[in-house]
């Protein structure tokens, strides 16, 4: 009996802390959303650009893009963010924390997204390109009219995965002084020593964002499947 009472009391304390701190997280959640949005948006632009460069017939461009991808995939995102925010100023390149974070995250996502596009393009049956070319299309026309629309559709599931990773990776921006959800959680935890309900609340916010994103992506996938068997 005593045990149950104690459990009820600690549960009540837990939830009252959650309810107390939930609204205080909102500015951080907003920053998380902004970071995720911009890093996905610019990541997509970079990814598309890199894919196009890799399809070009200039070997030099293709090489450059491969080096970019090798560097981004081969080093930790944490290091990349430190490098941009703390490292670049030493060669006179000072970038504020928010743009630094967006640049770092977007470059990071761009490399992965370009690889997603490459995989999708390579998965398209070569007969599609042959059919287009045999109508007299140039390589570029065949790519733009026939290959890319199909490849884009096929890349949606993997892109969705990358978007969810982007949301979670935005928490690393906390190390370069951006008070997004994760940094707020650390600060609230340090101030109250009541870390359990506070990290719980932060976790719930991340779950809400990623689950919402999953729903949206599922709907997009469904709409794109309409003319398939």
């Amino acid at each position, binding site marked *: 009996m005593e045990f149950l009472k104690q459990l009820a009391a600690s549960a009540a304390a837990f939830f009252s802390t959650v309810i107390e701190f939930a609204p205080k997280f909102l500015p951080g959640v907003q920053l998380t959303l902004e970071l995720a949005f911009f890093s996905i948006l610019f990541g997509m632009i970079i990814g598309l650009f890199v894919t196009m460069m890799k399809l070009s017939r200039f070997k030099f461009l293709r090489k450059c893009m491969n080096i970019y991808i090798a560097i981004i995939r081969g080093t930790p995102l944490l290091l990349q963010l430190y490098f941009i925010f703390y490292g670049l100023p030493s060669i006179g390149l000072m970038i504020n924390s928010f743009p630094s974070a967006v640049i770092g995250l977007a470059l990071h996502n761009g490399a992965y997204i370009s690889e997603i596009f490459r995989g999708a393009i390579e998965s398209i049956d070569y007969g599609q390109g042959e*059919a287009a070319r*045999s*109508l*007299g*299309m140039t390589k570029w026309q065949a790519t733009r009219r026939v290959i890319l629309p*199909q490849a884009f559709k096929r890349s949606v599931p993997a892109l969705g995965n990358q978007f969810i990773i982007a949301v979670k990776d935005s928490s690393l921006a906390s190390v370069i002084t951006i008070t997004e959800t994760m940094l707020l959680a650390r600060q609230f935890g340090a101030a109250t020593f009541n870390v359990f309900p506070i990290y719980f609340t932060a976790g719930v916010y991340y779950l809400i964002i990623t689950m919402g994103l999953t729903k949206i992506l599922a709907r997009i996938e469904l709409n794109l499947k309409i003319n398939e068997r």
Partner: protein
Amino acid sequence: MIKIKNLHKYFGELEVLKGINLEIEESEVVCLIGSSGSGKSTLLRCINFLETKTEGEIFIDGERVTKKEINRIRQKVGMVFQRFNLFPHMTVLQNVIEGPITVKKMPPKEAERIGLELLDKVNLSDKANEYPAMLSGGQQQRVAIARSLAMEPKVILFDEPTSALDPELVGEVLGVMKDLAKEGRTMVIVTHEMGFAREVADRIVFIHEGLIAEEGSPEEIFETPQHERLKSFLGQIIG
């Protein structure tokens, strides 16, 4: 219409075509036959540069085919594939008018009018707004034929157009091809349908190990085959 001079093609070390010489006249229907691996599909694909020839020359409509001019020359050469290769993200009508609009810069209205006429010709005008995935193999292949016709090619190449079809769907595709032959279209057909070849072809070319082993009218090829290989090939196929 097509003139092939001393065509060689290597895949790495393997010599697939060993010096093909072939001329095809306007309005002629030529069927290429031979066992698999003989090089007949490769020959067809070399004609419109889907495979790059290793050696030799190809002339289409009097023009030498070169890599630089290939996009322009390909407009004169239609191609129908074994596995149809329709564009799955476009409707049937969009598939047919894609070439005229993108390559010939034809106004969409005019292209649509022509596209619907062509679909009518292959008996598929009721499917204009369906996606290829909704169609049977035979219907898809007829759309593919309409798509190649939309470019008003001087010659159409068929690469085993009925080999991927269920037996009961072969007839409808061969029917459309017979109609085209009657119109006087120049056609080069790689096929295993000997009955069709016999009925439609003006000339039959038997390819064996990368060379033309024998050619002649359907009567000559089927009634009085000379080459030992052709005899055994016909024996296997006709049984």
